[in-house]
């Protein structure tokens, strides 16, 4: 744990709470296993002593901004999470003047689960190119951060070498295990519909069965709704209780959007996501 980095975060958080600039701080504290991190909300200056930052801080805390729209909050963001700030600003889900972004220069986070952490960097960190958050009001930074030079979309390319039947069989088997707990949706900062299509009764898009066909429809729709919007935090996969490799599906869609539109979500708050806009010159193979 980098105590200098943590001190910077705590000092900034304390001053924000003492001055009354924000109502609360959304950060990380130690989890009940004494080993990993969990989200933490500090509303009193004394509570900032519980704030931490280390290689187990995997959660994308920007999700919580969606519950706190009426009060100004400060949120601790890693470089990857900062892309969500841009996404949510672009989609008008948050207001810039209602969020104080406490950026952290992050050397990457490791694979964790409750009471378990291993020494390996998460896959997303091996391909991350961001040293600092893209947007911040304050930056906690201590030790120099080096970025590994991993190649993106290796997982997708490997999958693309397989036949259609092999790919279909793979996903059918994965989705069979789904228990429709919706942890993937609930943790996703890009999933914020007041009523998700999967729970709408009229019209009824997906039945209530926790069964292969329904699971498949749910998972495919979930992924497509995030095409060109997913910022690749991989939290959906991280929280899945039955280990469905959801990031592989997300990465495939991200790769397609990048190739077709030269666009990656959350890099720029001004740039409209391609699937929410229509340009006459975009024909995408129709009537060509």
């Amino acid at each position, binding site marked *: 744990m980098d105590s200098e980095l943590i001190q910077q975060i705590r000092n900034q958080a304390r001053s924000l709470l003492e001055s009354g600039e924000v109502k609360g701080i959304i950060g990380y504290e130690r989890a009940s296993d004494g080993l990993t991190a969990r989200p933490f909300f500090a509303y009193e200056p004394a509570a900032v002593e519980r704030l931490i930052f280390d290689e187990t801080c995997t959660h994308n805390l920007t999700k919580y901004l969606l519950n706190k729209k009426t009060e100004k909050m400060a949120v601790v963001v890693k470089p990857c999470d900062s892309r969500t700030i841009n996404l949510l600003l672009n989609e008008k889900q948050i207001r810039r003047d209602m969020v104080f972004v406490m950026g952290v220069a992050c050397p990457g986070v490791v694979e964790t689960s*409750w009471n378990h952490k291993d020494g390996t960097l998460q896959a997303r960190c091996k391909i991350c190119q961001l040293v600092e958050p893209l947007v911040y009001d304050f930056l906690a930074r201590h030790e120099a951060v080096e970025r590994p030079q991993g190649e993106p979309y290796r997982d997708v390319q490997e999958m693309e070498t397989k036949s259609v039947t092999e790919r279909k069989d793979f996903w059918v088997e994965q989705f069979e295990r789904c228990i*429709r707990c919706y942890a993937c949706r609930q943790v996703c900062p890009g999933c914020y519909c007041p009523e998700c299509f999967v729970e709408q009764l009229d019209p009824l898009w997906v039945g209530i069965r926790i069964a292969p066909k329904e699971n498949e429809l749910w998972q495919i729709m979930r992924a497509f709704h995030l095409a060109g919007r997913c910022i690749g935090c991989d939290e959906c996969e991280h929280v899945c209780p039955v280990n469905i490799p959801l990031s592989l599906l997300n990465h495939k869609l991200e790769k397609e959007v990048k190739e077709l539109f030269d666009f990656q979500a959350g890099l720029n708050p001004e740039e409209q996501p391609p699937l929410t806009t229509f340009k006459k010159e975009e024909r995408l193979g129709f009537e060509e």
Partner: protein
Amino acid sequence: MNLYISRGDLTRWLDQLCRERILLAPVRVQELTLFQPVSKVEEITLDFGNTTLSPKGWFLPPTEALFSVQDNDGQSQLVSSIIEKDAVIFGLRPCDAKGIALMDGPFLREPSDTPYQERRARTSLIGLSCRQAQPECFCTSMGSAPNDSSHVDILLTEIENGYIAQVITKKGKALLPKALVKSEEALPSPPELQTVPVKEITLAVRELFNDPYWEQLADRCLHCNVCAYVCPTCYCFDMRDYSNKENLERVRSWDSCQSIGFSRIAGGYNPRTTKGARLRQRFAHKLLYFPEEFQQDIACVGCGRCIKSCPVNIDIRETMSDLKRLEVKGGS
């Protein structure tokens, strides 16, 4: 009565069971351990702390058709859902067996739930005591124990050269092979577990019903359904009818109080809209409503699955400690 079963005996016995009955046992699926019907003994794993999902799914499946109405040459015919053979769950932990006994409260109270009753009556439970506790385990605080034989038909305990089978019920006795010899060997002592303060927790929940604690805790909660779906005692469900020209089916699927639409009623009103109210429902149901309604223990068996699976570390042991502390203090 205790009997000795060698490892070879166990394999032969399980082989016989899976030919005669539906045998559900722990199976490794990727990095998960799940109870699944097995057709060969080799599919079974005994190298596990506890299974990823509890065995409740056999009695209350994630999805089941309660009945269907079929068109039979112009006559409507009601077809009920039945299991084709008697079943055995092998290798369930004592905490999970207690979970099933707790579910009997809501499902077997008159009028009983027919599909549940049918599966319960036709299923035998072969428990496997825990020789090692997991970091998330706290069953001894919840009225069970790593070697608790109260809710199974047979309890197996692993010893150096095989297993000792404690025969608990007649159903269990009928299940065992005839040729086994009695064992006088002392059973190994169970592992020590952490203790969680649960004394009078029901009272604490009642006292703190309107406390701001719930909203504070809910700040962190994502309101997914993981805790409810991995829990051996969460039993809420949704129902819907599906029909086509030939067939109407009444389907029941797992549901959870953490979903926003769970408490929405006809006309669209939702009495439980805040995050805190939804999270409180989970704990209040387990710690207050359930024991009062069914005159049973509180609806938590200390398996720790929710602790292990919660994406944001909402830890029921910590919540119970917080509630006890706040009650003494007179609230937040």
